């Protein structure tokens, strides 16, 4: 009975071990031949300009995050749109509630000045 559990431990250890091995192999076996070209950041083929570690304004972060959050919430609109007729009025009410919450958060972000580029 108990021997039944042994494979589980083996799987656990194997998964962790394999992951470690892959990492180690990458470090050990990977040919290391760094050249100036290779060390350049990859920018889709076009030559990079400017310093590599340029500081970007923190405002990009805030805007990007706000975008991602509101963007991801749109995920929930798709199933509703696909089943719009079958869900009927109740679905509409629920979606309205959902969007109301989103709107309130948007208003909050707006009033708090998170959307203003220059403050």
């Amino acid at each position, binding site marked *: 009975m108990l021997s*039944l559990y042994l494979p589980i431990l083996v799987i656990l250890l194997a998964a962790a071990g394999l992951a470690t091995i892959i990492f180690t192999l990458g470090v050990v076996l990977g040919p290391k031949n760094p050249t100036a070209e290779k060390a350049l950041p990859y920018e889709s083929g076009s030559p990079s300009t400017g310093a590599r570690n340029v500081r970007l304004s923190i405002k990009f972060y805030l805007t990007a995050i706000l975008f991602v959050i509101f963007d991801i919430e749109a995920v929930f609109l798709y199933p509703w749109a696909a089943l719009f007729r079958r869900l009927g009025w109740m679905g509409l009410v629920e979606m309205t509630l959902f969007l109301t919450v989103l709107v309130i958060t948007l208003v909050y972000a707006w009033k708090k000045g998170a959307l203003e580029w220059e403050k």
Partner: protein
Amino acid sequence: MTAADMLYLAPLLCLVAGGLAIMLVDAFAPKGPNAQRAELATLTTVVLVAAAGLSVALWMKGSTRGPEWITSYLATDRVALFFDVVICGGTAFAVLLAGGYLREHEMERGEFYPLVLFSAFGAIVLARSTDMLTVFIGLETMSLGVYSLVAFRRTSPRSAEGALKYFLLGSFAAAILLFGAALLYGATGHTDLAGIGAAVKSGHADTRLTVIGLLLLLVGLAFKVSAVPFHQWTPDAYEGAITPVTAFMSVAVKTAAFAVLLRVLVVAFSDPLTASVSTGWPAVFAALAALTMVVGNLAAAVQTSVKRMLAYSSIAHAGYILVAFVALPSQGESAVTAVLFYLAAYTVSNALAFGSLILIGSRGREAVSYDDLAGIGRRNPLVALPFILGMLSLMGFPPTAGFFAKYYVFSVAVQAGGGMVWLAVLGVLSSVIGAYYYLRVVVFMFMKEPKEGQTIAVPMKSGYVVIALILSAYFVLRMGLAPGAYLEWALEAAKRLV
């Protein structure tokens, strides 16, 4: 799906609506240093009390059987309502403490209160969840709010560090939990706890996947209740956070984590295979409980910071509660009752302890370490009094709430018999260490003088904090002197669960 069905969710809706309303109030409030600020703490407390009141009303009405579309995701039974009240109550204490603390330390920013409300909402979802999906949603809603709250003091490296560690480890543990849930889904074809339970009982589930899924799930939850060895984030996050947030974490967050652990184990894993005392989760919990009690108490004994001591003490208390979990398979409802009562008692005791710590400090002179407490009892005995009561209750001294809580947990273990008795003995002995470090607080307050050149903590004046202290002191004594009614309620709730 009707509007009447919504009644069962009234406490949850109340919290969300309240949180959104407070966000708007905060957003449209006049700005500037001299602007008349709305009393957001009062508003938030009202929302929390209303939510708790709705839960009580549902309890009294006896309407605990919700429609299926709700109960397949969120429980509406009495255990759920019991935890609603404990979590809302604990959060309300934390909010009252924050009302005084934030103003005193000049960091009153409006986002605090919605964050707390949404975290409490997440905690209640977690405590009520009957599906792995709601477990995860509740867990993350609660945790994301708490991560932000820990980082609330933006200028403090400690605050940021505590939040970072909590976030990193919390996300890691959440991922583990989620993987466990996915594997359980694979093993049983269900994500709802009842479905998983039925599949496991019937023997159709893949045993290997079930066990590994359960294990990962338990690791994730053990992390949230800060059981040793998954506890290391606790002292750092507790110390980094501002004290009201620490209070919130130690009461509401911990209660919710234990609530979901309870429900998962009772509903999904009470079959003889996984709940067998020798090889199933009870054995795992016995080891966890023993380690947690010993390590929590030992580490608490050597702290120099009272806040950190309280963090380790909360780990030790988690260990005591886990003792009751080990007794779940054999003791059923009395074990559940012990857990429920312990969490309620722990909530009020801890609110009292953290509230006293907040009261003792004022701006620039916050009390954190034992040394800060030196002589406060003689300069200001009234301030020291609630602290003593809180310490006595945490110590488990009669006639306080903490005494009966500990008593029931250990007597459940004794009643389970066998190896459990040793667990109870270990718990009783390790709690003697507790007497040492809790009393040290009293010793410092009354028997030490501040060192030369040390900044002296000066008590703050705040109606909010005083109200929180009076209420929590009342409950500590009430539950210690006449725990009968509370036990009845806990038993009433426990009966339906088991």
